[in-house]
């Protein structure tokens, strides 16, 4: 019999904790010897997760992680007690169905994410709050030694995004931005076609970003805060404003204090693929200009129609318009390829491009086992995710730059290395979002 030299992840924890004051849990690889029957990790070896924000997309992510055998969902947090109760019920019945006893009650609920992050047994957190919380929670998670899967856009301002990247780098954390379109095989293949010159020299990227039926709405009345909803905590770092129902939950994305409208919402998916195909994950454009129709009245104030453009140092021009079909077209001097968002179907001209084989000696972008699974794999190997923090930050930055240029109504020159506008200190003042105390980045 061979004795394994591999130390289990939990044993690592135990050894480390013995000499550590207030040590956070330390995610680590799961060696084969720790696997239980059928390759399913033993309970003590699973990545213990918590979720911050379990409404729409948060619930979807929660299920995605819960269904991975190597994770265990131990805690949830939401400022809406109804969301929290629903989600906890779902987690507990999920584990109850798999428990010999038929019951389970080990998923704790929190109103305040700081309590969840303070738990030593949590290895990684999923963050699906409204956008204005992304930066604050991510940075706190990094400081608490947690790895994180954070919904897109990575942050609500350029400065927040840079602070997230710095904190993640500083504490050597793993972060996956929730730009799951990156994990589609078709999208990665299309980007490989572009990166390997199959469409010739790339010169233009067209981003189609239709807004569907989400138009402006009327001014809304002040309303009493519903029972079980911690409105002050929902507002968090955002400026104080009176409660009205359509400020919160799904609608927040059309109010500039909390998000950037369609531009940062699905724009963060499409521009993300544009960045991947252009090979500019680590940088950004050198100028931005655009026109946006921002409602002059009513509650919503994000752009409802828009056209904005970027130029890159590599000579590529990107233009984004509010039109369908939703997706990104890479145009080169020998053809084009179009990626449809939310489905990943491809179109190309010539059509034969889509039968091209990427050879072993060409640029290969790898394939994802799924966006959630990819994150867990990186947590185990301390590796790099499909949507790493720098890429997530650069994509979100482009969305923010577009909104700033459209709001100011003038073309802006951008220094992607130092992340500030050139000769425009006033525009620079819009690079950070408001931080209402006690929150900060």
């Amino acid at each position, binding site marked *: 019999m061979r004795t394994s030299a591999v130390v289990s992840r939990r044993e690592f924890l135990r050894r480390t904790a013995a000499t550590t004051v207030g040590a956070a849990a330390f995610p680590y690889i799961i060696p084969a010897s720790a696997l239980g029957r059928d390759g399913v990790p033993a309970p003590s070896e699973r990545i213990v997760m918590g979720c911050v924000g379990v409404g729409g997309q948060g619930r979807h992510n929660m299920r995605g992680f819960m269904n991975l055998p190597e994770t265990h969902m131990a805690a949830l947090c939401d400022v809406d007690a109804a969301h929290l109760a629903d989600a906890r019920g779902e987690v507990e019945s999920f584990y109850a169905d798999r428990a010999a006893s038929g019951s389970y009650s080990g998923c704790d609920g929190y109103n305040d994410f700081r309590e969840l992050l303070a738990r030593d047994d949590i290895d990684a957190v999923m963050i699906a709050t409204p956008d204005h919380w992304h930066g604050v929670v991510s940075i706190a998670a990094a400081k608490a030694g947690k790895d994180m899967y954070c919904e897109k856009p990575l942050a609500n301002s350029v400065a927040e995004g840079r602070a997230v990247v710095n904190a993640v780098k500083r504490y050597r954390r793993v972060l996956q931005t929730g730009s799951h379109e990156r994990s589609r095989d078709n999208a990665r293949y299309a980007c490989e076609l572009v990166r390997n010159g199959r469409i010739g020299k790339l010169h233009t990227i067209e981003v189609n970003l239709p807004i569907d039926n989400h138009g402006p709405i009327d001014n809304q009345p002040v309303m009493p805060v519903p029972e079980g909803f911690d409105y002050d905590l929902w507002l968090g770092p955002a400026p*104080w404003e009176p409660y009205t129902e359509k400020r919160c939950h799904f609608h927040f994305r059309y109010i500039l204090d909390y998000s950037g409208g369609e531009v940062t919402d699905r724009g963060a998916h499409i521009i993300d693929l544009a960045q991947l195909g252009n090979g500019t994950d680590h940088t950004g454009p050198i100028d931005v200009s655009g026109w946006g129709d921002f409602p002059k009245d009513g509650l919503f104030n994000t752009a409802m129609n828009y056209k904005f453009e970027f130029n890159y140092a590599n000579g590529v021009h990107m233009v984004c318009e509010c039109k369908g079909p939703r997706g990104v077209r890479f145009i080169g001097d020998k053809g084009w390829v179009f990626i449809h968002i939310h489905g990943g179907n491809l179109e190309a001209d010539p059509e034969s491009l889509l039968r091209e084989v990427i050879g072993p000696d060409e640029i290969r972008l790898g394939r994802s086992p799924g966006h959630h699974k990819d994150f867990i794999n990186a947590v185990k190997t301390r590796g790099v995710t499909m949507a790493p923090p720098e890429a997530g930050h650069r994509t979100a930055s482009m969305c923010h730059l577009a909104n700033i240029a459209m709001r100011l109504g003038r073309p802006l020159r951008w220094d992607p290395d130092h992340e500030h506008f050139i000769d425009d200190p006033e525009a620079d003042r819009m690079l950070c979002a408001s931080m209402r105390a006690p929150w900060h980045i």
Partner: protein
Amino acid sequence: MKCLIICALATSLLAQPPSSMDAAFDALKTYTFGQSREALSEIDATVQAAYGDADARAQLEQRLADTILSGCTDDAARFVCRQLAVIGGEASVPALASLIDHETLTGAAIDALERNPSEAAGDALIAGLYTQNPRTKLGLVHALGARGDARAVDPLRQCFLADPRSPVAAAALLAVARIGGPGGRTLIKHVLTDGLPEVRSAAVDAYLVFADGLLVAGDTQGAWAIYDVLIAPAEAGHVRAAALRGRVRCAPEDASGMLLDAFESGDPPLQAAAAGLIRELPEDANLRPFVKRLTSLDAAGQLLLLDALANRRAPVDAAVFETLLAGEEAVQLAVIRAMPACGDERCAALLVDQAATGKGEVKRAARECLSAMPGTKVNAELLSIARGDDVPRAAEAVRVLGERGATEAAEPLMRLAKRAADPVCSEAWRALRNVAKAEDAPKLVAMLVTLKEEAARGNAERAVAATAARIADTERRAAAVIDALNETSDEAARASLLRALGAIATPDALVALRNALNRENEALRAVVVDALASWPDPAPAQDLLRIAENPSNDAERAKALEGCVRLMRSLKDKPAEARLDTFKALAALARDEAEKKRVLAALGDLPALATFDLIDALATDPALEAEAALAALNVAKVVWGAYPEVVNPRLETLAGGLDDNLRIEAQALLDLMPRTEDYITAWRVSGPLAVEGKVATTLFDGAEPPDDATAGWRIMPMGLDRNAPFVADLGRALGGAECVAFLRTFIHAPAAGPALLELGTNDGVKVWLNGALVHALNVGRALTPGEDKVQMHLDAGWNTLLLAVFQHGGDWAACARLRAPDGAPLAGLRTAVTPE
């Protein structure tokens, strides 16, 4: 020039006496949330337009500040703070400072001051620190930290000392760290040395921030000293990881040594941090020392290091990999996954070994990695193994050459396919499917005709078909096979060629197979029928029906029947009525229970009124009752809107049946049917239609009623949206974007007269009544029932109502009903999908 025009506009706006700006500022003073914010938008636009005009900006800043100082609502003050956050200078500081202690405006005021570049703004923030409100104090502390104003260090220190265990104290530590300087360092060090557990983690974070600041400023010695403290085993793992990263950045020339030491320390947090940091070493960093240590690490270290080295594509000698492959499975897998990035052609043999002899995940990973190994030399190495005597390894190498698309190996693989015994022969044929070129097709056909290795026959036929598919000219694809068929009399070869024609599936291949039907013996006829029954499109459906009607034997009849049913089912876009006769014939031909069940299942996809009679005719056998009920339910789901009177009693019967699932579904449909609210549910649909290069809005202008001969009108399934069963949900029924679909119904009016069409569509719509355009709206919108109201005049008898519904993206739907001109219900109308 553009800027000058904008400035002129702003100046003129400000100059208008009494301007709309006066009115806007007046409205601003009393603005509260929920009121119109048009005045605020006007001010915002003026502020933006004044960019570049210092005088105009100064006037606006003062006016905004005066709005606060002269008294305004909280909501107005909040708006002003937002404006001043972007344009404010020294002039607006007093107004903003007056709000620092305000209960709900403190955050907005501090935010505006934080971004204000004037020294006065910093003074105001420092002065505000004497507030008694801890939340305000926190905001001020963070703002001072963000501004990096060295004058704030001592006041922040005082804040800390005033209550050193409080959140304000923790924030003050971070703030002084961000500002930098010896005062801050002393304070943080003091906290770390003297305890204070409430703020210790904040002090650690602040110390790291402070050190990172020193590093950026070039004080590596000072930074190192801090990292040296924080790397101590007593600190948390992620803090030690941060400290290790800091050390590496302090002394990049020693980075490799430090990371090696971390790996060898057996200290898990440092090992994991080192694995991550290897990825960040400079591109030209020497990674050889890491590679050398691979074999001496424990398994956990090996796993981390292998992943990191693979990320850096660091070359690893095949001998090192070979040693590591003796380890446990997790290490084996890590080695295999690292090989494409770190290995060279010498790894190919190792991987082939694992692929040929390994099991489970190891075998799968080895195969995957063999496909991904870069370098043309890998193909040469694989070819060498393929030619060897070790049959399992040779077969594996041949298989991989195919997966790698090694077209340069086509000729050697053809030789192996000719001469080698199985399994190498089979694998060679399989590989040729991927690597043979179009011009190789005749050679492959010739090889297929003389093939001796029976086990390879299936792969050989598929290789011939796949190679033929690469011939650009469709009409030439089957030529070589047809020529060979005309020349060979060998029965096995003819069978292979016939099967290959079935897989090539071009029109001339179909002609050749039809001809063969009349010439071949019974065994080869069976091959032809198989090929026709597997045809990828419905072209041979009627051939199969004729075979089923006049078979040579019962097996042939059964196969033809099965194939015909499959092909007819695939014609879902064709109107059900056009398929009905074929299905009647198939129903008559079905003999045993299995065949009848197959036909019944297909009838469920035939949404026509007459389908119910066919189902009834087949369902006389009690053994078929369940299939018949399911088929009837599936038809009812689509046609209930068109024929509610016929469907209702059938659903009543199903709802009273024994099968739980059917019962529930039938009852759900019955519950749905009364909820149509007088809307038209008898629709036929045609489309979707799209035009290359056009979006829905540009498609709109040219959209005309479709030609009946080509429209392919079929019954529109209703109730797809259970909450609104009267909505024709085109998105779910058809799918598509930037396109149009047509909905048509016939309306019987007892007498001529006016009527009101109440219409809702998502997105745009055109409406024709009896061929005349009566309504057109090119719009993107959500569906609102009755949003459009169109006055029309109905003829006595049957009228034709036609809608073109356009799809921009997202949801796609329509609903319509007819009312009296005043909106009251209109009695006496009947609607139908076909005029009676």
